[in-house]
């Protein structure tokens, strides 16, 4: 049997792997382990002295209503972002799939937000919807809504959700379009001949075939909602008003670098790790399940 593994020198292989492994250990694994360790200590501000406190930091999290609110907000935010971005992107990708003229142009105009720096997204929306000076503020207020996300929690929450969805559409369209292109043309023809309408074809024929891609995207979008949205909060709302947009990552940042609560912040890191780990595990199981009937 032909094999690619023609080289056998162990020290050469080790040398080739060394840079990646070294960086992984020093900057990824060791700090992650250390975060777990630190979460068991109370770290003195300034002195850096650490007192072992066991699970005290976790108990603090369990009893902090502020942290509970932050967890709840983040879950709501993630659900809103995942549902919002995936429905919007599915429609856009489907329409691109349906046309012949201008396909390439539509595709580029839909995937470009993938390149959009999150802080730029934040500043542009800050400008568009500024309660006093925004370009869209007066047109929206004509519908009887008082645009005031500086003091209205629900509005601020809605705003960061919209921005987060906007920025993530590009990434989703990239994968959804590729997945739709792999659907056999014969299937589309059969559905057409059977008189299946567009919407039903999308929901009952395409979506099931695309389910491995959709599962992958659901996980990637959730991870994005948890970790990739810091800049929006930092630029637009700073977690406010009154904690209405204080999602976990912003909360963690504030604890670590504004309050210097290193022990508690590390406990929050560990909680975040458990969440990502859980999500990756779910993705793995879902993909594994779907692998049997292809797609």
């Amino acid at each position, binding site marked *: 049997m032909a094999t690619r593994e023609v080289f056998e020198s162990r020290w050469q292989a080790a040398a080739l792997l060394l840079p990646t492994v070294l960086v992984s250990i020093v900057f990824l694994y060791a700090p992650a382990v250390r975060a777990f360790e630190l979460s068991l200590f109370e770290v003195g501000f300034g002195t850096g002295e650490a007192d072992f406190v066991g699970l005290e930091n976790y108990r603090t999290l369990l009893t902090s209503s502020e942290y509970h609110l932050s967890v709840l907000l983040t879950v709501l935010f993630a659900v809103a972002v995942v549902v919002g971005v995936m429905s919007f992107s599915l429609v856009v990708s489907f329409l691109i799939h349906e046309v012949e003229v201008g396909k390439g142009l539509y595709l580029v105009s839909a995937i470009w937000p993938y390149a959009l720096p999150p802080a730029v997204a934040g500043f*542009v929306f800050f400008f568009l919807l500024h309660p006093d000076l925004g370009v869209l503020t007066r047109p929206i207020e004509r519908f009887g809504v008082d645009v005031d996300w500086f003091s209205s929690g629900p509005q601020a929450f809605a705003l960061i959700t919209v921005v987060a969805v906007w920025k993530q559409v590009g990434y989703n369209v990239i994968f959804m379009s590729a997945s739709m292109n792999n659907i056999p043309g014969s299937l589309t023809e059969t559905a057409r001949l059977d008189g299946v309408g567009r919407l039903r074809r999308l929901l009952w024929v395409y979506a099931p075939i695309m389910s491995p891609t959709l599962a992958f995207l659901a996980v990637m979008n959730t991870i994005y909602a948890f970790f990739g949205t810091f800049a929006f909060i930092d630029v637009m709302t700073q977690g406010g008003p009154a904690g209405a947009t204080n999602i976990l990552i912003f909360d963690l940042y504030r604890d670590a670098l504004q309050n210097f609560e290193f022990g508690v912040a590390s406990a929050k890191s560990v909680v975040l790790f458990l969440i990502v780990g859980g999500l990756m595990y779910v993705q793995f199981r879902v993909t594994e399940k779907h692998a049997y009937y292809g797609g």
Partner: protein
Amino acid sequence: MTLLETIVDVPNRAAEYLSGERTGDRLARLREDGLAVHAALASLVLLLLFPVLVAVIVSTKESGIITGLGGLVPGGNTYANYYRALVELEFYRYMLNSLVMASVVVVGKLVVSLLAVLAVVYYRVPYKDIVFLFILFTLLLPVPVRFVPLYRLVTGLGWNNTVLAITVPYLASATTVFVLRQHFLSIPPSLVENAKLDGVGPLEFLWRVLIPMSKGILVGVSVIIFVYAWNQYLWPLVIVGDDLQVAQVGLGQLRGQAQAGDVAWALTMTGSVLTLLPPLVLLVLFRKPLLETFSIQRK
């Protein structure tokens, strides 16, 4: 047609022109697609483009205060705004810092990952699958998960406010290793066997055979890494000071400095457009290899 669309459309138009397609045929095919579908698609795409178009328009005006859609006409202040932002308010420094950071991360990640993948795919050594999993597992450890210790580690190394702080921690790349491995596994084994018979060493094989055969993938991966590095916000924000700060964080500075006059918004939008430009240009130019690379990532 918008500016972006026009730029993006150039290759398509050229192709059409060369293929000699008539406007009439195009209209007929448009009708075949269904005009309603095109109308729906065009409005959705416009919705996606609208915020950035506003930013572009505002960056050409003297005052950024526009309180209504009627004010959305380009002004005559383009040169003045971009000059003021880039030169007088020194936004070019942040752009350069971002460029340095992103370029170092792209080159570093590519080199380090190519070496690792060479070992993973072409060496018969024990435990290499475990090492591969060990590298992949780092996907579970984004910056927030190791935030405090990483901050203390980098500070302890004395790297605060150095380029090392915003590049070295990014050099290990599970995604790059994964994509390159998939690609190398699709290259016929006979190539490496012949190379070995001819006495070609592993590094020479990488340099002379693998890299020339992987140009598309390497371009695609480079764009992905560049966009990823350029769009890093939280880590540079906390670990480097103003001297080395990146464009995204610099936007906040720009707004602060411009706040003195009533032109703050025009200049902030100018900075926003500038910050968006490099990754956007790469995406548009290299969309084909980028899309191909993504299709490997999903396999």
